């Protein structure tokens, strides 16, 4: 028996303010924003939950990775899915069909299988949410591209080999690609498909 948790206390205001934070994050990749309107449906973190609640509905197939359960042992992914289905009417989907997908930072993801858009409609690529374990750990990356004045140095947490490889050397060529939103607790950091990511070698 699962219990439905409350969603946003002020749905109109809170989804607007969350959207503006996501807009800020994606238009300035590498800039960390805070989403503080909801505690999240475990095992999803607060920021990932708020992004999904403010942007998803019956038109956006959603994939939640079972590997997220490793982060929070008590909560099951089914519980989070039920809550999201109740609050935004999203339909669960396979990873290959998802418009929005949430995966764990340590997970190996076959990025080539995700939707990356088509030449005439590149906007149909997946928005991939990655639950990171903190923006103060892991290797340093240098970001350049639209939304970044000169360059930005960021840490993205301990990401799996497949995610790091995709960031540095994406298997899709622009304009095709996947937009990545890295979430940690209330924090969000985005890497757009236009962002050039370079690994800074350790000293």
């Amino acid at each position, binding site marked *: 028996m699962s219990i439905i948790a409350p969603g946003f206390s002020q*749905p*109109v*205001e809170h*989804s*607007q*303010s969350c*959207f*503006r934070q*996501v*807009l800020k994050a*994606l*238009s*300035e990749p590498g800039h960390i924003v805070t989403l503080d309107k909801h505690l999240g449906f475990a095992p999803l973190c607060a920021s990932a939950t708020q992004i999904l609640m*403010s*942007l*998803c*509905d019956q*038109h*956006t197939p959603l994939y939640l990775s079972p590997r997220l359960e490793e982060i929070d042992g008590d909560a099951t992914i089914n519980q989070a899915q039920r809550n999201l289905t109740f609050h935004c009417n999203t339909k669960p989907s396979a990873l290959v069909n998802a418009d929005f997908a949430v995966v764990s930072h340590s997970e190996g993801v076959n990025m080539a299988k995700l939707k990356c858009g088509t*030449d*005439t409609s*590149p*906007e149909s*690529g997946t*928005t991939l949410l990655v639950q990171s374990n903190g923006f103060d750990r892991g290797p340093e990356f240098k970001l350049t591209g*639209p*939304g*970044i*004045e000169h360059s930005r140095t960021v840490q993205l947490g301990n990401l799996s080999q497949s995610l790091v490889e995709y960031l540095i050397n994406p298997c899709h060529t*622009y*304009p095709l*690609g996947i*937009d990545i939103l890295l979430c940690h607790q209330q924090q969000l950091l985005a890497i*757009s*498909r*236009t962002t050039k990511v370079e690994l800074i070698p350790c000293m």
Partner: protein
Amino acid sequence: MQSFNQIVSATEPEQDYNFGYLDEQTKRMIRRAILKGVALPGYQVAFGGREMPMPYGWGTGGIMLSASILGQDDVFKVIDQGADDTTNAVSIRQFFAKVCHLETTTETAKASVIQTRHRIPEQPLRNDQILVFQVPIPEPLRFIEPRETETKKMHSLGEYGSMQVKLYEDIVKYGYIATSYAYPVMVHGRYLMDPSPIPKFDNPKMHQSNALMLFGAGREKRIYCIPPYTDVASLDFEDHPFSIQQWQAPCSLCGSETSFLDEVLIDDQGQRMFVCSDTDYCQGQLAKNAAEEALHG
């Protein structure tokens, strides 16, 4: 005896529109389109445009964008050809004051969201500001190739030679590139974009701009975006480099020599004067001049 409706209206405040007029489902759809547009600078994202309480051509695309991004804390400014006091600007400002109950302003520096028709403010924008453009025809290739199926292919292949030919025809006919507004630009070196009918004078302001720029076309149902600090290059030729308009005389009101001037007829004899098109900038300059005069006697 009071009717049920009378009791309800006595106890409840007047029930009006949802915040921002649009329903939440529509806002979410537009928000998703904006995010994809930001990830694909200059690319036109199709969206399900809604019927707005004003006709197409009055800025419905910009209004739908503003309605989807505005929040209670925003300060909203609307300009029409640079002016805060024209019919279009006043009615859109009143519309959002009514459906959002938010603060409006005419001062560029005070605004957090600026909706504009055909100008970019003279005062440099900040990183925390968003500029929303009203766009009549979003497709820069439309007058070269009327078929949407073909222009979509041209964008996907980056096949923009025909636009260079159009500018070249200008040179052959007039000796210079005569296109002076809606001057085509390349965004992030990939997508050809129509910057809406802003004068080419404003094109350089889009390059590496501090502010996020969103473009909305209501009739054509397209959204496109330029994130801050993005390369925006106006098309030109090595021997005919891009140049902006210049005027012989300064603004007749404030004396500015750097702003975009409008030609205004002032009598039946055909007398004319040139004044700043950006009314807020012009008033700011006038106030500055007055303060300096007072200081130096």
